[in-house]
């Protein structure tokens, strides 16, 4: 059954090759090009070198995020997320950080909201441990945005098993399933 809102069919798995040309033609957002929506929705992949010796801060950050979301489950709600993944990996003895997100909205639209969340206490530590991150980012949103965009590596291929479905739609479907289950229980 197609999703009428976007005339994009979630029931048919879909892959999209993203060419350099299609990125060049991308729609202009406030802070730069809006990377196109794919069957895997919107997203970004930020890859940056960390300041040597700072690995422990990243693991501390992970615990903070875990605690923060447990205490306040809607902490990241405004970002319209599906999934986030954080990695640390080594190349030639240097440690790099990778941060991938899958979103229902292009990053350009909620840039300032993201900065707002990072500014909130306990969540601001991790970016400050990346090389070249602007020291004045709290008062200089454009510098923060420039860093993120400079370190974003667009995908060349994206795949969706249930393409274009939004988090909200998926949650609605799961709620409906739960409600039906409950209804059947009540009918026993």
């Amino acid at each position, binding site marked *: 059954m197609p999703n*009428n*809102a*976007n005339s994009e069919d979630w029931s048919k798995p879909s892959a999209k090759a993203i060419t350099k040309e299609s990125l060049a033609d991308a*729609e*202009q*957002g*406030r*802070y730069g090009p809006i990377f196109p929506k794919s069957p895997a929705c919107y997203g970004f992949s930020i890859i940056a070198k960390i300041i040597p010796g700072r690995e422990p801060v990243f693991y501390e950050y992970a615990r903070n995020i875990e605690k923060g979301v447990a205490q306040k489950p809607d902490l990241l*709600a*405004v970002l319209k997320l599906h999934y986030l993944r954080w990695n640390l990996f080594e190349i030639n003895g240097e440690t790099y950080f990778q941060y991938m997100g899958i979103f229902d*909205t292009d990053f*350009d*639209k*909620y840039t*300032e*909201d993201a900065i*707002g969340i990072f*500014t909130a206490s306990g969540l601001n530590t991790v970016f400050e441990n990346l090389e070249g991150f602007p020291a*004045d980012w*709290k*008062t*200089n*949103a*454009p510098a923060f945005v420039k860093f993120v965009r400079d370190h974003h590596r667009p995908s060349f291929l994206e795949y969706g098993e249930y393409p274009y479905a*939004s988090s*909200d739609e998926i949650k609605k479907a799961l709620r409906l399933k739960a409600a039906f289950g409950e209804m059947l229980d009540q009918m026993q």
Partner: protein
Amino acid sequence: MLEIDDIQHFVIERAKALAARYEFLSFRDAKGARAWLSALSGTVSSAAQMRAAPSSDRRWVTLAFTWNGLRALGVDEASLATFPEEFKQGMAARAEVLGDIGANAPEHWVGGLASPDLHAIAILFAGDVAERERCRQEHEALVAQCEGVVVLSSLDMEATPPFDHAHDHFGYRDRLSQPVIEGTGEEPTPGSGGPLKAGEFILGYQDESGQEPVLPQPEILSRNGSYIAYRRLEEHVGKFRDFLRQNGDTPDEQELIAAKLMGRWRSGAPLILAPEKDDPALGADPQRNNDFNYKEMDPKGYAIPLGAHIRRMNPRDTAPSMNRRRMIRRGATYGPPLPEGTPEDGVERGIAAFLVCGSLIRQFEFAQNVWINDKNFHELGNERDPIVGAQDGTLEFKIPKRPIRKKITGLPAFTTVRGGAYFFLPGIKALHYLATLGNHSESE
């Protein structure tokens, strides 16, 4: 402390004017431009002066400059480079971001507003048309004396009858939801939220993030200044009334359609508080007419449709970081009113308004890009703002209703952007700094 003796009155006070004139200027000679500014800056009142002024004041002058205008006055390149990117580019260059496409595109703009030669605006609010005419002549004489100062275009404005309340040519009551700046002593009306940190509107103060944003340089130029986005929006009154007739069989149904597009009856009464029929007394009562929210009172949009104009322009408790998106509105209507029952006469009429903010990209451009023109705002799928969005006849407007919603397809454009620009509105000291640049600049 808010330095109200250094902030132009425009940001904080509203002039009791029934007429206005905007003059758009170009500077071809820096000395001439500074002579013009020197002569005029004395007429620009600070907010403190306006508060202390006798009620016999008959005219209020405001001056602001484009980025190119600051250069034309002699601001050095190093300083110019410290202004935000979107201000440097100017509104016309940001057209795609703003949704100024198709009929709204800068190539169709009037008055030289899309030109890089646009350098300044002189905004005159006047007690009446006679006072405006007196000021116009005085300014004309001044411009003639100043080398290289050219008036690119101008726009005259008068309030439209009835004069007892502010409203646009469509008949919607205006000025119902204005933010209040902390430290001005003003009290927000119920439902309008608390006073906002001055930095949301004026440079040099803490904003709602709790930080003081970095200032463009030098500080004498930027402190106590604001950015303003100017929009000249033609209102197609005949088309709007035709639409109401096509979508409502009775005058009551037509009024309801008009109310659903806006989210308020034309009287100003919000649909959440008056869902079935208009309540003009409510619309006129500032203690009541803005006192509502969406999350608890109307989450599904049965009263105010999810895509209605006021729900997009101020989503209240249904948007994150709401206090980081507010703007102060100033402006007036231009063109003759189109009497009810008169067919469209082809004369341009509309609103010429200013949106005052501390960051064009975070406030004005966000509102344009996301709230007004994102087709998927509130997951609506195929809608833009029904009053000011980029409409091309292919989009819809959904009115939630039990048992089934009403969907209007092929919504026409009721407005067209006829021009716009980004200006920097300097503080009073900054105006004097600009006027005397040649005296302390080695390059002159």
